[in-house]
């Protein structure tokens, strides 16, 4: 019972953090940080997604296999991005003399 109450407190705290981060990302977008606007926005999004996954989706208590499934799919997204950019990032290198 008390364990449940603890987990509810955690849920409320995480929710509070998520709301703060969402507000932060909206506010920080108004400030000109040059190329760092994207970086900041993505870092905040990653933190939010991490909070939802770890606490709301109970990754924290899940077996390592579930972590593995998640990590592999994230790794595969990275493979897709990085290798596609092996093409796009080098398109301008000496394509025409």
């Amino acid at each position, binding site marked *: 019972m008390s364990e449940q109450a603890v987990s509810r407190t955690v849920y409320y705290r995480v929710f509070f953090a998520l709301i703060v981060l969402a507000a932060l990302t909206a506010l920080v977008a108004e400030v000109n940080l040059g190329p760092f606007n994207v970086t900041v926005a993505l870092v905040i999004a990653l933190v939010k997604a991490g909070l939802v996954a770890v606490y709301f989706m109970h990754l924290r208590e899940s077996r390592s296999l579930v972590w593995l499934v998640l990590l592999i799919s994230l790794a595969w997204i990275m493979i897709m991005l990085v290798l596609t950019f092996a093409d796009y990032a080098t398109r301008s290198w*000496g394509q*025409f*003399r």
Partner: protein
Amino acid sequence: MPEWITWLFPDQASTIAPKVDWLYLALILVTGSVALLIFTLITVYSIRYRRRRIDQRGAHIEGFVPLELFWAVIPFLIFMGIFAWGGVIYYERSSPPKGTIDIYVVGKQWMWKLQHLEGPREINQLHIPAGYPVRLLMTSQDVIHSFYVPAFRIKQDVLPGRYTSQWFQATKPGRYHLFCAEYCGTEHSRMIGTIEVMRQEDFQQWIEAQRATQPMKSSGKEVFARLGCDSCHSSTDTPLGPSLHNVYQRKTSLKGGGSIVADESYLRESILNPADRIVHGYQSTMPTYRGQISDEQLNELIEYIKSLKR
């Protein structure tokens, strides 16, 4: 290349063709011996270790790690060797030398339209001299095509909306197949033509005979004037637009960050869709010329811009 084996190959008519063929032969040799080894082993084992008694078991062998490592590492090293060999030739075919003869190619369903810098246009046929490097600047009016000349061992897809290029140097006069290699619709298999490689002096004669036409850059100059390009792009930079003199192959910084080398694709994009990537320090005031200019005229215009030197 020994005579008895030439039936394996199409005509060898470019500088790169024998290189590709030697690599191909080497691959046949390497992979052939591996295949032979495996087939022999399978045959020998199958006969030698056939089951003689109904209850006979095989020997108990778990495996042998050094052997596993051997047949993982050795092939890998051979593979890397092949990769390097193929990569070197690929690098060569992707890097045209200086001073090529340029040909503009426009693919459309289902024909090839080609134009020499001197002006002559050809359809499904290309005359070129032997012994000179030729570069093809190619674009498509509709779907993806692919310019393939087996005798030269070259192939490159031709895409709508941008230029791709490839180069070759023909070595042997003759007539060779030109194929479209990327499936492009109903008449795909009839989107074919001939490359006519001529001796230097024959080619000179041929191109003289086409003199009725004017060089691409002159036609391009007329287009330039007709569209009124010079009202914004004069010989010096103005607030309206940058000068186009020496713009070709110049690294240009862009509005909104980044920079780009002003190659044919960028020039083309800037005429058809000027707002996509604007030169730093300018406003997006240029209208699009999409629809007012054909692909051939666009090629001529670009050739003219490339010829603008200070």
